[in-house]
């Protein structure tokens, strides 16, 4: 009996020693396995990208790029809503895991201010034969330019506009698209009540955060407001309160069921399935509206500028339509900056963008030549003029950018959601948001 116990004890100890040794050696092995992963000497770069058609287009064409340059490219995609957190965690740890990130200028400007991404000017000459800054449509490059630096290459851009059902407007005797916010409300009411509530007067994104803030910022500007007053953050300014209450009342009175949780996709589906007579959203929605295979409103949609509540569009440039650009940024922590820039130049080059126009939904391509091409006009003719008009007047400062952008968008988004849900009045919700932001951003 004792011998057995002793034997077991010895066996246990041997097992413990073996397990410990395995763990320790395993740990050491893991510590020493941080290789470059560059595939046997070739340069390898890693790209974190949005999961959209532009990225799919790169993936299709990548073999050619890799063959020509000898640069291997790994593209990792994540949903847009999770992307900012992933990128920022990576940058804040000074990680070189991603050489290039693909995200929108709202975040990109903050990354540049925090010195997480590089000024690209010094790399431009190295890939001159592939692409140069002056080939981009200027308004698309502008949001990534400051003090002589260019810190991002635009992949796609967009503005916002009013989309309305011409057939319903005609049916209910409404003459043309609304040109003021009062008319917008009256038209929404006429169609909602005229249809007995079966067609919503208007649908907008109502989900908290960037989803609702993006189109709502158009209402803010339409009422003459801004996120800042005299350089100071003032999300509870009277114009902001007025715009928010109008926005919430409009959706509560004439919006579709469940609008409080609508994100871009749900809002787009509600409109393309004929649930609503109007929506205000990105110019990127155009192709989805006109896609006869998935939209019941194809050919029945009119495109117009977003109306103002104030008498005229402000001459200061505080227009109520966005100019939002999603661009490629070069990580300051990349160990392969030249190769990474070469990929960025290629991914935004004429051949790649022309292929996107030919084979995917890509109304937001950013090279002047591609936008003016016959292929572009043929594919997006139904709304090309309206898109270009909105881009020309697009507000580069439409959303707050820089280091404070996330906090402002999140808090204002929560205030919008609370107002829409009836938890608080617009004034109370925005005052709470302003207080919270003061605490956070001190």
């Amino acid at each position, binding site marked *: *009996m*004792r011998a057995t*116990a002793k034997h*077991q*004890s010895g066996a*246990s*100890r041997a097992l*413990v*020693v073996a*397990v*410990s040794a395995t*763990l*320790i050696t395993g740990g050491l092995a893991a510590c020493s396995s941080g290789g470059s992963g560059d595939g046997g000497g070739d340069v390898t770069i890693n790209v974190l990208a949005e999961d959209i058609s532009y990225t799919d287009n790169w993936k299709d064409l990548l073999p050619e790029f890799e063959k020509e340059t000898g640069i291997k490219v790994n593209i990792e995609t994540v949903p847009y809503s999770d992307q*900012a*957190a992933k990128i*920022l*965690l990576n*940058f*804040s740890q000074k990680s070189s895991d991603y050489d290039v990130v693909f995200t929108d200028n709202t975040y990109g400007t*903050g990354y540049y201010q*925090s*010195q*997480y991404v590089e000024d690209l000017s010094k790399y431009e000459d190295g890939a001159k034969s592939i692409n140069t800054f002056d080939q981009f449509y200027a308004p698309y490059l502008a949001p990534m330019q400051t003090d002589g630096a260019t810190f991002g290459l635009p992949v796609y851009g967009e503005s916002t506009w009013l989309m309305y059902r011409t057939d319903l407007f005609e049916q209910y005797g409404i003459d043309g698209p609304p040109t003021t916010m009062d008319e917008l409300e009256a038209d929404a009411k006429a169609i909602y009540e005229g249809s007995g509530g079966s067609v919503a007067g208007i649908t907008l994104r*109502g*989900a*908290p*955060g960037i989803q609702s803030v993006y189109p709502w910022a158009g209402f803010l500007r339409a009422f003459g407001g801004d996120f800042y007053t005299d350089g100071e953050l003032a999300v509870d300014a009277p114009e902001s309160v007025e715009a928010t209450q109008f926005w919430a009342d409009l959706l509560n009175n004439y919006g*579709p*069921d*469940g*609008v*409080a*949780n*609508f994100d871009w996709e*749900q809002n787009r*589906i*509600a409109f393309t*399935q004929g*649930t609503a007579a109007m929506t205000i959203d990105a110019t990127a929605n155009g192709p989805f509206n006109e896609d006869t295979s998935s939209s019941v409103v194809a050919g029945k949609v009119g495109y117009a500028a977003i109306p103002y509540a104030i008498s005229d569009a402000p001459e200061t440039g505080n227009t109520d339509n966005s100019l939002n650009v999603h661009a490629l940024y070069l990580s300051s922590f990349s160990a392969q900056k030249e190769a990474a820039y070469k990929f960025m130049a290629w991914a935004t080059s004429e051949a790649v963008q022309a292929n996107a126009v030919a084979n995917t939904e890509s109304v937001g391509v950013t090279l002047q030549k591609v936008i003016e091409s016959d292929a572009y006009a043929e594919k997006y003719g139904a709304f090309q003029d309206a898109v270009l008009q909105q881009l020309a007047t697009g507000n580069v400062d439409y959303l707050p950018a820089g*280091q*404070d952008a*996330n*906090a402002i968008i*999140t*808090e204002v988004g*929560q205030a919008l*959601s*609370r107002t*829409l*849900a*009836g*938890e*608080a009045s617009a004034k109370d919700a925005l005052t*709470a948001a302003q207080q*919270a932001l003061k*605490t*956070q951003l001190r």
Partner: protein
Amino acid sequence: MSATATRQAPVGPGERETASYRRPRSRQRARDLVSRASLALPAAIIIIPLLLIILVQGVQLVTHGENLLRPGSADRFVGFDNFFRAFSDPTLFGSIRVTLVYVFVGVGIEMALGVAVALALHGRIPGKGFLRAIILMPMVLTPVVAGLMWRLLLDPTSGFVNWFLDTIGIGGHAFLGDPATALGTVILVEVWQNTPFVVIIVLAGLESLDPSPFEAAQVDGATGFKLLRHITLPLLAPVLSIVVLLRVIDAVKTFAIINTMTKGGPGTSTLAISNYVYRIGFETFDIGYATTVGVLVSLAVLVILFPAATRLMGLRIRKVRR
């Protein structure tokens, strides 16, 4: 366990003397100590440094105003400011209220339903294995998949639920878009997904109960509800306690179902604590404050649940000894 077995092993007087001769008592005690320490060593090598790192890093984070978007902010010492901010944060209190409702209502319904289904499945019924497999299905899904699936089903424009309600003449409703129904709907999905856990554990508990108290009670004329009230439930009490404890711990941490279904909206009507911490930490990147809220909530949960857990575990140990 093996050390206890060695100590309690019956040995004759002669054997004991021989053992003492061979191995002095103090030396043996030292060897026992080394033996026990060697068993704990692999876990200790991993757990202790991790705990220390987390503790040191945690203290650093809660006393500093770190924001990932502001390089250098990690060095901004704020003392207890993050704690004062938490105690005056109305959104945090709102999220605590939402979490409490979610836990009490959700776990309460799960327990009632779970016990009822387990009792119905107890005994010899045809197709029991098949039924058990079917019941398990929601539990197998990850909360993200369950949340997304229900979000699609409940979609007011194209979801099945509203189509069905419309078809039978009740009329649809934007369950997730209405603050009056959003939390209730999310709780129902929690119940749908986690009731099977209660069923399986309670069913296992029922099947392991000693039949003699039931036979004695039946001889005394107890049947139906009386048998359930006075015999089944008291005997199941330790199992039920553990199930409640596990479900409460899990429900307090809820995140994925709410994040995929409503992201805490409309307004803050479904914003649970974990979702709020995620929002602060990963949307505004206010890491210092997010950690403070996380620490406060974890401490609160520990203070509330630890005594309950200790008592329940004590109860189980006493039962085993009896």
